[in-house]
C-alpha cells in the first residue's frame, strides 16, 4: 500500500517539506544541502541524529527546592509557612518559564532537530502538565526521558514513562496502594497512550492498576523507587492472560496487540504527515511498525520514505502548532529570541504552552489552533517578530515578582534585514522576494503566491529600504499561508 518515494519526486520543495516536518525548517542553503544529499541520505541525516550534549536548565537540580522545603518544614507559625509556600510557588513559576525558554532555545539551536521534533511529539502523546506536577525539575526530567527514549523502542519508552516521577504524580501512581490501587494511570495508558478507547475492558483497567502499585518517588533525589511492600504481587488477569504481572509485563502485553501499532502509527502519521482515517493506509503503516518491532527510528525512516508523505494531501496542509510557529520563525530568520515571560505569554495566547498541555489528551491540534482570537494574536506577533517585540504592545501583563526584579521585559530588535539580503539584492526586488519567500514559506518561489509579492515591490524606489523589506516580511507572515506547513 505504501509507495516508495521516487527520485523524480525528490525536488527542492520535497526536501523543504521533509525539513519542516521532521524538524522546524531551515534557510535556503540548508534545504539545498538536504536536497543535494538525495532522499535516503537526507532522511538518514535527520532521523539517525543523536541527542547532542546540551547545557541543562537551571531547574535541572533535584535538590533545587531542598532549602525552601526545609524552611517549610521548620516554619512554626501559619504566616511563616504561608510565606515559604509563596516563595516555592514563585520559584516554580519562574523555573517553569525558564524551562520553556530552554526547550525553545534547544529546538531553535539544535543540530538534531528531528530529535526535538520527536520529543515534542511524545510530549503531546504522554501529555503531562506542570499544573499538577508543580515541580520544574520533574518536568525537565520527563522531557529528557522523552528525548533519550523517544527514538528507540516504543515499549521501552512506555515503561520509562511509567517510572517517570512527573507522570507518576500526574496520573496518581504515587498514591496507588496495594489495598486501594489508583486506576488513573492504568486507564490512560490504554485509552490515550497505546490502544484507544474500547480496546480493553473495565476489568483490564482494574487489574492493570494492581500491577502499577509500589511505584514511589525517592524524596532524596526525586527519582523512581520501587516499594515492594506496596506492590500487589497477586494474580491478575489482563487481556485474557493470568499471572502475577508487574507494570512492565502489562506494557509488553499491550504492545503485543496489533491495535497498539495501529494507534501509534496513526498518531505519528497525523503529526508528521496529515490526519487520515483511511484504514488501508493505517494498516500499512501499522504493519511496518510491527515489522520493525516497534523501533521508532526505522519506522520514521519508512514514514519519510513514502510517496504519500510528499503527496498533495501532505504538503502545506497542516496548521502550524504555536511551537512550530515560533521555533520555525527563529530557526529560519534572523530574529532574536525574547525573554521567557514573553515567550510564555505568546504561547498562552496561541493556545499551546509547552509543559502545560490542557489535559492528558494533549493538544487537539489542526483547526483547533485557530479561532478569531488566536489568529488575531498570531498576526500581531508575526508583525512584532519582524519589527521587534514590544511586550507591552503585545499585551503582556505585569511580570512575576521574581522575573527581572519586577521590570517589564525588554523589547527585542527588529529583523536583521542585512542577514537576509545583500546590497545588490536591494536593487533587484525579485531577489528580495525570492529570499524572503523561501525562508518564510519554506518552499520555492515558483508558486503563484510569490507573484503577488513581486507586484507589491514593483513600484518601490530602489535600493529597497529596511522598512520596505520588513513590511514585505510582515505581510508574508500575516497571511493564512504562513500559518500552514
Amino acid at each position: 500500500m505504501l509507495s516508495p518515494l521516487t527520485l523524480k519526486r525528490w525536488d527542492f520543495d520535497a526536501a523543504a517539506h521533509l525539513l519542516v516536518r521532521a524538524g522546524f525548517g531551515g534557510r535556503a542553503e540548508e534545504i539545498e544541502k538536504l536536497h543535494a544529499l538525495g532522499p535516503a541520505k537526507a532522511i538518514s541525516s535527520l532521523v539517525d541524529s543523536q541527542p547532542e550534549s546540551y547545557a541543562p536548565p537551571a531547574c535541572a537540580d533535584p535538590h533545587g527546592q531542598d532549602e525552601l522545603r526545609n524552611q517549610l518544614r521548620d516554619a512554626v507559625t501559619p504566616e511563616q509557612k504561608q510565606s515559604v509556600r509563596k516563595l516555592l510557588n514563585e520559584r516554580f513559576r519562574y523555573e517553569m518559564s525558564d524551562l520553556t525558554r530552554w526547550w525553545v532555545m534547544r529546538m531553535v539551536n539544535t543540530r538534531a532537530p528531528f530529535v526535538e521534533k520527536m520529543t515534542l511529539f511524545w510530549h503531546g502523546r504522554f501529555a503531562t502538565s506542570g499544573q499538577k506536577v508543580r515541580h520544574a525539575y520533574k518536568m525537565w526530567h520527563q522531557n529528557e526521558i522523552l528525548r533519550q527514549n523517544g527514538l528507540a523502542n516504543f515499549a521501552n519508552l512506555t515503561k520509562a514513562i511509567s517510572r517517570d516521577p512527573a507522570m507518576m504524580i500526574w496520573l496518581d501512581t504515587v498514591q496507588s496502594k496495594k489495598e486501594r490501587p489508583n486506576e488513573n494511570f492504568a486507564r490512560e495508558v490504554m485509552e490515550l497512550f497505546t490502544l484507544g478507547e474500547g480496546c480493553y475492558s473495565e476489568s483490564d483497567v482494574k487489574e492493570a492498576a494492581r500491577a502499577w502499585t509500589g511505584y514511589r518517588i525517592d524524596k532524596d533525589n526525586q527519582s523512581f523507587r520501587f516499594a515492594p511492600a506496596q506492590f500487589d504481587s497477586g494474580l491478575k488477569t489482563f487481556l485474557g492472560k493470568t499471572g502475577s504481572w508487574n507494570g512492565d509485563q502489562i506494557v509488553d502485553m499491550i504492545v503485543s496487540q496489533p491495535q497498539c501499532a495501529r494507534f501509534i502509527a496513526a498518531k505519528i502519521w497525523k503529526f508528521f504527515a496529515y490526519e487520515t482515517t483511511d484504514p488501508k493506509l493505517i494498516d500499512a503503516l501499522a504493519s511496518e511498525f510491527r515489522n520493525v518491532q516497534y523501533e521508532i527510528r526505522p519506522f520514521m525512516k519508512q514514514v519519510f520514505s513514502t510517496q504519500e508523505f510528499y503527496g498533495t494531501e501532505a504538503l502545506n496542509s497542516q496548521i502550524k502548532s504555536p511551537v512550530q510557529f515560533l521555533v520555525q520563525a527563529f530557526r529560519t530568520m534572523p530574529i532574536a529570541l525574547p525573554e521567557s515571560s514573553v515567550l510564555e505569554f505568546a504561547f498562552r495566547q496561541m493556545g499551546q504552552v509547552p509543559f502545560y498541555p490542557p489535559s492528558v489528551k494533549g493538544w487537539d491540534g489542526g483547526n483547533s489552533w485557530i479561532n478569531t482570537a488566536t489568529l488575531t494574536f498570531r498576526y500581531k506577533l508575526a508583525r512584532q517578530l519582524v519589527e521587534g517585540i514590544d511586550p507591552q504592545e503585545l499585551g503582556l501583563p505585569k511580570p512575576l515578582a521574581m522575573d527581572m526584579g519586577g521590570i517589564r521585559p525588554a523589547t527585542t530588535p527588529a529583523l536583521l534585514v542585512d542577514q537576509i539580503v545583500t546590497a545588490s539584492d536591494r536593487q533587484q526586488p525579485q531577489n528580495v522576494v525570492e529570499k524572503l519567500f523561501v525562508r518564510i514559506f519554506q518552499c520555492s518561489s515558483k508558486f503563484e503566491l510569490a507573484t503577488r509579492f513581486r507586484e507589491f515591490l514593483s513600484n518601490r524606489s530602489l535600493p529597497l529600504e529596511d522598512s520596505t523589506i520588513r513590511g514585505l516580511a510582515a505581510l508574508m507572515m500575516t497571511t493564512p499561508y504562513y500559518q500552514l506547513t
Partner: protein
Amino acid sequence: MEHDLPVLTRRAFLRTSLIVAALSWTVPVFIQQTCMVMHAQALDSAVQGGTGRDHPILVVIQLAGGNDGLNTIIPFEDDLYFKARPTIGIPKNQVIPLDKGIGLHPSLGSLKALYESGNLAIIQGVGYPNPNRSHFRSTEIWQTASDANQILTKGWLGRYFDNCCRGEDPTVGVVLGEQLPEAFNANVPTGVAIGRPGNLGFDRTSDPGEAHLFSELNGLEPDAMSGDSIGSLSGPNNSGLSALEYLQRTALDAQVSAERIRQMLRSSKNEVSYPRNQLGNSLGLIARLIAGSLPTRVYYASQGGYDTHAGQANTHQRLLSEFSAALFAFCNDLKRKGIFDRIVVMTFSEFGRRVIENANGGTDHGTAAPLFVCGGGVNPGLYGKQPALDKLDSGDLFYGIDFRSVYSTILLNWMKAPAGKILGREFPKLSFV
C-alpha cells in the same frame, strides 16, 4: 490591519454571498452557513437565528479559584458552622438573612436587593459525584460538563454552539479576556475573545499597498482572488474545507466581528457607573454590547483570586464586594436600558471549600457550593438544600444538585436548546428559569 474596507455588514455580506455563491470559498463561514440555513429554510429547528434584539442571552461569570460557598451563603443558625469555623465564620449578627437560617455574606448586600426585587435565584449545594479537588481538573469538569472520570474535549457552551448556532456570527459567543475558556471548545470554532477593546482586530498599517495586499491575501475582499491562484500551494484535507480555506474564513470572521464590536461600542454607553475592577469593566462592556444588539447568545467573564488558603477573611470580603457591586451595576444598567428581561447571569466556581477552616485562617479545596442565577426572567428564591454539616464526605459537603442540572435548565428553559443532546444525557430540570 484595519483597512479602508467598507464596513462589512451582515446584510451586505448576505447580498454579496448570494451573488457570488459560486465562489463559495471566499465567503466567511458564518455567511455560507447562513445561506445554507436560508436555503434549507431552517429545517433543522435546533438552529437558532438571532437578530441581536430578541433572543435570550446567557452571561456566565466564573469565580476562579474555588469560592468558599459556606461563607457566601451562610447557614447562620447551625452551630456546626461556627464550630467548624471559629475564626473565619461570619458572626450571626453580621449575616444578611434571606430565609430560614440561610443568609448572605455581609459584602453581598446588593444581592439581597436583587433577591427582594425578584431577580435572583440561589442554587444551593451544587456539585457532582466523585468530586475532584484539583483546580485544573475540576474546572475542566465544569467547563466540559463531563463526569469526574471522563475527559471531554468540547465544552458545554461549545456543544451548544455546535448544536444550535451553526451559521451564526462568530460573535455568538463573546469572552471578556484574552483567551477562550475551555467551555467554548467546539467542533466549529466559535467565539471571540476581547482582551482590551483597543486590541480588537488586526493591527493597522500605514502603507496603503501593504493594506491592500493584506486584504487580498486574507480573503477580506470577496472578489479579490480566486481559489486557483493558490490551489497549488495547499492540499485539501478530510474536512472538505482545506486548512487554507478555514484560515481565510477565520481571518474574515475576525475582521468582521472586530469591526462590528467597535461599532457597537461607539454607539452605546453605560447608564450607571461600574466599580473599577476587572469584573466591573467586563460587565460594563458586556452591557454596552448587549445594548448595541450584538447577536451574541453567550457572554463570558471571570473574576479570579478565590483560592483563599490563608488569611481568607479580608480577601474573601474584598472579592465578594467587587463581585456584588459589579453585578448590581450590571443589572441596574440593563434595567435602565430596558433589556434586563433578555439576560440571565449564571455564576460558577470549580469547587467550594473545606468545611473546617485550616490553621492559616483560610480554607482548603472542597466540593459542593452554591451558585447564583440572576436576571429579569429568573424565578427568584432558594433552590436545593444547604448541604448538611453533620454528614460529610471526608470533610467536605455532599452535593445535592448536579451542576449539569443547572446547565440543563438554562439550556432548555432559557436558551430553548436541546439540553439532553448537548449534555450527552438528561439531567433533572429545576425551575429557576
